[in-house]
């Protein structure tokens, strides 16, 4: 029972990170109908930036994260601006463009930080907390709390602000949105920047849990993407649920199947998607896909 609960908590904290990645995918997908394949590599840049600000510049962890989010947010804005002329013209090229940006980001990371990667020390105390005999890493709780705060802020932004409402309107009908005076390009840019910021947050948080290296985006990105698909791509609550599902699955699979854990995770994912192709929460169709 104890092992079960501890695995569960580890899975949830990993799941929170996948949920952040999935939310980034979903936010861009629902606004533009585009899967941003550079997302995973933006995450990697975010992880490197956060670890550099934290360890080399010796800034507090929270400040390092904020700076990393700002840096990747700018990268997101840049990617959207470069790809914007292709919108409504050649969607496939736009998709390939995001793959290209991903490769460029990896190359840039190797140039700046080298190909070997680095370990990031945990920003909060070493000794695990004990609840009723249950040992929980403090950092897992920090990850969960930060992810929860990010979800809350994102939902509040989408639901309560003028810009958030406009972004949702663009996602649903960009022509009608234009007719009421919404700047569709700007709305897309904000979606890209927010998505990139979420990637950096995920990257910064995952740094102390894993090893930061130029290809780390691949593993986390593909699981985040799977989480977004599992929840129903474009659906924010779905992305969160999908993230936790993949995280917990990952955590238990690692405990029981060791070397085959990834295989098990994706096998389960494939079966679920075969049964429900639109994902667990996916009844909403994005008309622009």
């Amino acid at each position: 029972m104890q092992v079960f609960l501890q695995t569960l908590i580890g899975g949830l904290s990993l799941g929170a990170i996948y949920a952040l990645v999935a939310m980034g995918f979903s936010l861009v997908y629902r606004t533009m109908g585009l899967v941003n394949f550079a997302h995973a590599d933006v995450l990697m840049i975010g992880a490197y930036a956060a670890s550099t600000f934290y360890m080399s510049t010796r800034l507090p962890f929270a400040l390092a994260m904020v700076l990393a989010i700002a840096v990747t947010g700018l990268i997101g804005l840049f990617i959207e601006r470069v790809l914007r002329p292709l919108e409504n013209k050649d969607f496939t090229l736009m998709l390939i463009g995001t793959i290209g940006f991903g490769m460029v980001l990896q190359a840039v990371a190797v140039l700046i930080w080298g190909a070997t990667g680095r370990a990031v020390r945990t920003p909060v105390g070493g000794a695990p907390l004990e609840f009723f005999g249950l040992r929980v890493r403090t950092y897992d709780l920090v990850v969960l709390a930060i992810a929860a705060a990010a979800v809350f802020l994102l939902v509040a932004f989408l639901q309560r602000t003028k810009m958030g409402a406009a972004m949702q309107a663009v996602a649903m009908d960009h022509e009608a949105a234009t007719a009421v005076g919404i700047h569709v390009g700007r709305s897309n840019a904000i979606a890209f920047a927010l998505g990139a910021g979420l990637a950096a947050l995920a990257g910064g948080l995952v740094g102390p849990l894993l090893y930061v290296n130029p290809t780390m985006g691949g593993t986390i990105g593909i699981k985040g993407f799977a989480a977004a698909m599992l929840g129903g791509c474009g659906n924010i609550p779905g992305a969160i649920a999908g993230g936790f599902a993949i995280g917990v699955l990952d955590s238990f699979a690692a405990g029981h199947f060791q070397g085959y854990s990834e295989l098990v995770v994706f096998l389960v994912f494939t079966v679920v998607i075969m049964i429900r192709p639109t994902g667990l929460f996916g009844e909403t169709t994005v008309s622009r896909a």
Partner: protein
Amino acid sequence: MNADTTARDGEKTAERIEPGPAPATLTVEDLSVHYGGVCAVNSIGFTVEPGQSVGIIGANGAGKTSTLKALMGLVPRSAGRVTFGGVDLTKVKAREIVRHGIGYVPEGRHVFPGLTVEKNLMLGAYARAWRGAGTRESLAEVYELFPVLGEMRGRLAGALSGGQQQMLAVGRALMARPRLILLDEPSMGLSPKLVEGILAVLLRLREEGLSLLLVEQNAKLTFEATSDCVVMENGEVAMVGTSRDLRDDVQVRRIYLGL
């Protein structure tokens, strides 16, 4: 709705380009629209005077919707001049058109299905001060015009019936306090009883001094709602006249009214 615009112009609406107090005329000259090599609208022209209501009728594919979209800048214009109140609209970006006082009710309603009725309406006032006193006032006016929208303000727009969505689309356009409103097939897919309701709304907007440009396949509705009409055929203007004359025209009666 237009008559009291001037009185409210004093409010602090930083983002809004206030429509000038002077009533504006829409002038369209030699407007053409091409999709690839195909000509959808071929050098058409007409005017909508302040407070005037003009209808465009014609069969499917006559170029009516393309004309409206071209006015809104939603499809590229291959040629022509479009001015509204002296402003050259061909130099105005699509998203800025609403700020010059032109509201648009698209064909097929195109409400934002996943947002509530109230948020749809608020987005109609996107170009104005968000949550400003003026916006709340407009919201109250729309709810007065369409009480059913007030009752359903918390409902998702996608869950409304076709007739209610049409009201929402009209209400959303009104939220921008336009001087001219472009309506694309507001009767499409509605029962005769609901079409009567749409007619009543159009007549009321006319009474309030709003200029209307109504695109319809329903010629009967158009003749009742407008003072003047343009008949389009194959992207060209086939006939122009007062709605009354056209309604009595033998040819028009045969083609469009089936009489």
